[in-house]
């Protein structure tokens, strides 16, 4: 295939993975590879990246597709040269998992990256033997295990989690790579651990491609999701980490957007004094007209958040975001509930949101019954205890999936809360099409709220805050 054609094909893959690549950018990419040296893979990748990816958040998607498309194909066409011959690889294949783990430990401690790559190939061969090959067997394409499954089995076989935890501990104590200060050793080790994991993943994908064909593999592969589009309710631990990583920058951006909107548009009255003062420099002609600034009214925020298992991640992130925007509000008071409600504002002053919620759990002030959330009861208690403090300037935010575990909704309590405050918004982390299915009774509450908003990911959360702040 011509290089241009291949590039366009590659860009098509990027688009299919959800990236926006414009026509102008694909032309740039073609021009870039024409002038950029192609012999070095890294430079080729950088050149494409600079022309096609215009947002750092898209780097993981680009890298995944790139490796898949260019490195995958390359690996298929020519397996690595230093791979041992047929007999050798059978020899390594008969190695037991325990032996492999030991070799891996040595290599992680003081081996070269090449050794790690070689070990990844051996490990993949062993996984293949254990699982009876990487073929799809008699299973139909749709039910076929993807690379994730083999990775999981491999990590288990090598006891990789334990091994890396042990090594990391040793590194922190300065027992590994003694020539380096402990932090640097730990960092180097982390890189190696990640390198091996990626090498193994690549090797497994290569084997899958060899036995099943490219097409079948790319169908079972999951592409990374942008951190701001990860769904709160089924985020993995790793994804929650990703979200935590981008939250500060998201909050910063949001604060800047809100501040900008406030300074724009709403121009105050004519400031005669200031205008006259400036007119002196133009001989008394008022060329620059000055206006007074208008001070935006700041709402008082009451956040009522469900912290039971299913919506905890969502509540944590929302609280964190709101706290980092605290200067936009006159006051922020937060209340946590499961089947009882309690004010947690003070707690958040001393520790970060995660820690605070952990403490709330431990101290068990929120649970009377079985630990399932009871929205109705929590609303009722909140209304009795705190609604005296609501004023016509208060905005109430309720964070919950509205799943009441078949208990009494007590929506009249919400009605009373709504009448005492300026606005009541309900944020639901579930997709709107799942509302009012099963034990979700969001519809009953909806009539008392000014709006019920679907907030499945950080992006929707930021949009909501921007619109209402």
């Amino acid at each position, binding site marked *: 295939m011509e290089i241009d054609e291949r590039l366009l094909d590659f860009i098509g893959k990027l688009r299919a993975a959800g990236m926006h690549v414009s026509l102008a950018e694909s032309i740039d990419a073609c021009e870039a590879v024409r002038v950029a040296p192609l012999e070095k893979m890294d430079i080729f990748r950088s050149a494409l990246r600079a022309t096609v990816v*215009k947002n750092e958040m898209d780097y993981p998607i680009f890298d995944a597709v790139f490796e898949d498309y260019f490195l995958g194909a390359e690996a298929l066409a020519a397996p690595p040269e230093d791979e041992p011959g047929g007999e050798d690889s059978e020899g390594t294949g008969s190695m037991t998992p325990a032996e492999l783990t030991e070799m891996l430990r040595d290599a992680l401690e003081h081996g070269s990256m090449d050794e790690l790559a070689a070990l990844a190939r051996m490990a993949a061969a062993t996984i293949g033997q254990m699982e009876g090959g990487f073929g799809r067997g008699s299973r139909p394409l749709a039910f076929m295990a993807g690379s994730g499954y083999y990775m999981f089995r491999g990590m288990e076989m090598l006891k990789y989690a334990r091994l890396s935890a042990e090594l990391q501990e040793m590194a922190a104590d300065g027992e590994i790579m003694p020539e380096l*200060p402990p932090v640097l050793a730990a960092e180097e080790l982390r890189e190696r651990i990640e390198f091996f994991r990626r090498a193994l993943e690549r090797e497994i994908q290569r084997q899958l491609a060899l036995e099943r064909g490219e097409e079948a593999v790319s169908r079972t592969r999951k592409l990374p999701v942008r951190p701001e589009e990860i769904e709160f309710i089924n985020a993995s631990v790793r994804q929650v980490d990703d979200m935590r990583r981008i939250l500060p920058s998201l909050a910063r*951006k949001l604060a800047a957007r809100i501040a900008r909107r406030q300074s724009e548009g709403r121009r105050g009255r004519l400031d005669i004094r200031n205008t006259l003062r400036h007119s002196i420099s133009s001989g008394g002609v008022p060329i620059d007209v000055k206006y007074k600034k208008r001070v935006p009214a700041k709402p008082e925020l009451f956040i009522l958040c469900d912290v039971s298992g299913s919506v905890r991640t969502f509540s944590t992130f929302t609280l964190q975001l709101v706290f980092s925007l605290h200067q936009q509000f006159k006051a922020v008071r937060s209340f946590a509930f499961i089947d009882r409600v309690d004010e947690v504002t003070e707690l958040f002053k001393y520790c970060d949101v995660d820690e605070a919620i952990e403490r709330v759990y431990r101290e068990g002030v929120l649970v009377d019954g079985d630990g399932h959330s009871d929205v109705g009861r929590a609303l009722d208690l909140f209304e009795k205890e705190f609604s005296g403090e609501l004023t016509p300037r208060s905005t109430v935010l309720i964070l919950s999936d509205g799943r009441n575990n078949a208990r009494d909704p007590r929506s009249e309590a919400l009605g009373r809360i709504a009448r005492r405050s300026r606005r009541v918004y309900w944020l639901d982390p579930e997709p709107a099409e799942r509302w009012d299915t099963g034990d979700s009774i969001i519809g009953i509450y909806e009539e008392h709220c000014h709006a019920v908003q679907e907030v499945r990911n950080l992006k929707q959360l930021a949009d909501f805050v921007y619109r209402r702040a």
Partner: protein
Amino acid sequence: MRGQKKASKEKEKVEKNNGALIDEIKQGMKGAEYLCDDGIATALYLADELNKPILAEGPAGVGKTDLAKAYSRYTGLPLIRLQCYEGLDEAKALYEWNYKKQLLRIQADRTEGTSWEDLEDDLFSEEFLLPRPLLRAITNEGRVVLLVDEVDKADVEFEAFLLEVLSDFQVSIPELGTVDARQMPFVVLTSNRTRDLSEALRRRCLYLYIDFPEVSRELEIVRLRVPGIAEDLARRVIAVVRYIRQMDLKKVPSISETLDWATAVKVLGRDVIDEELISSTLSLLVKEQKDLEKVQASLKSLARQALE
């Protein structure tokens, strides 16, 4: 003429081993005291070849602004800098009529009785034009490096205007006519991402995300920019900085702060980094009061990083 030159340049490139071109940039930039990785060098190379602006994003203090400065030192092209801020407009970025001078001119003229037509021609001539960075970059005799710093701070309207200038490199001044660029400037835009830049602007640029460097590169940077620092000391400095970066702080130490601190440690002439030294110089690394308290609390483990 230009075409010929380009053809010969092309030929020269084919003869040269392509990878060497990137290495040349790396070497040159190193001479200008800036260490590039493959990504940065490739972006510089492409920006020059394709005549496109570079948009550099990344955390504060990783060397985005320095990239433009170093490139200017490396190529010997003069640097013109446009610092963006909220409320920056065409008058401050492109050109402005010096209306105070014009007023003076009119007043001085009252007695002489020149006709209005003559006066008008005179008033809107280059004498009364105040060229701002963008116009200067375009009208400069030779090629320049144009640094548009912190574009994200400027308003959306300004961004749209910038887009127009960057795509045509020509400016029309109603009273004088259109001004074309004599040479395409080499443009670097930087952004700290306090807001998302428009898609259109991103499309026009080559994108470069600069992150904190890995250990080996940071070590090299320290040794390059703090001449005479002992290898061992440099490594300890970095160990401490990277340990602090792992802490949960509002603002983690950037490369420029690392360099400041490394210089301080070197100047103080100490070869051991102990608790007392860290404590007394910490304000060079950590700037927020709350962060300072947090780091002060874990001085012991910090110093341990540096000792081993």
